[in-house]
């Protein structure tokens, strides 16, 4: 495809209470086939989507959190997470899943997909896009 656009998927909502987080991921996975420059933003309650140890069995819901770890296989490797959003919610990077991708330009070395940025840094990421889709 001749034109490559910068797509940002903005995730500001917690998982499970509403479907937006899950249906956002479905867009990202389909979108990966289009060879665009894809980033995901996690801020506000969106950072809750990435927590590890989610166990939905007793609640009777579908656990979609393992899908985040598969994003690297779809070449979705830039997951921007806002530091202030983590802090306000009492979370650290240790509370989040370890999401990695294989860097084909570096002998397939495993590298972290999560990029922690400040609020100002997140604003810079947002301002650098062609298409911003919010969930």
């Amino acid at each position: 495809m001749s034109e490559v656009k910068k797509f940002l998927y903005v995730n500001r909502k917690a998982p499970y209470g509403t479907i937006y987080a899950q249906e956002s991921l479905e867009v990202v996975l389909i979108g990966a086939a289009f060879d665009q420059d894809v980033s995901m933003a996690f801020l506000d309650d969106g950072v809750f989507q990435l927590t590890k140890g989610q166990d939905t069995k007793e609640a009777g819901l579908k656990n979609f959190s393992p899908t985040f770890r598969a994003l690297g296989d779809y070449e979705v490797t830039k997951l921007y997470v806002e530091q202030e959003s983590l802090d306000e919610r009492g979370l650290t990077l240790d509370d989040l899943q370890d999401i990695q991708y294989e860097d084909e330009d570096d002998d397939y070395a495993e590298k972290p997909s999560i990029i922690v940025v400040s609020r100002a840094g997140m604003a810079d990421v947002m301002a650098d896009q062609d298409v911003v889709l919010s969930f």
Partner: protein
Amino acid sequence: MKFGIVVSEGPYTHQASDSAYNFVKAALAKGHEVARVFFYHDGVNVGTRLSVPPQDDRQIQEQWTALAKEHDLDLVICIAAAQRRGLLDQNEADRQGKDANNIAEGFRISGLGQLIEMGIQCDRTITFGD
């Protein structure tokens, strides 16, 4: 004790109908009576038989239909809310001149009076919504 339940949001989009389902199961398991489940606002969309959720996900409408069958539950869909959102039984389809209906087994369509009556007759009324 006699419980009345209100479900105010649609399936999958909100967790409300899942929470209500879990609550009703637990109440029945404890020997309580669930006199009625009243579906209002987008909750009426729980009662469509046309949904085809992913096979690895829970089947919300089928869960309710099965629970209603097992425990003879009264699952009532509000007619006014259903009309706005396109949820019909055959009777309503005929009345409105629509060529199809989409209500699932185990649900019935009735008026808002059923919600008030439920509140009057039940010891506790609990709403699951947004």
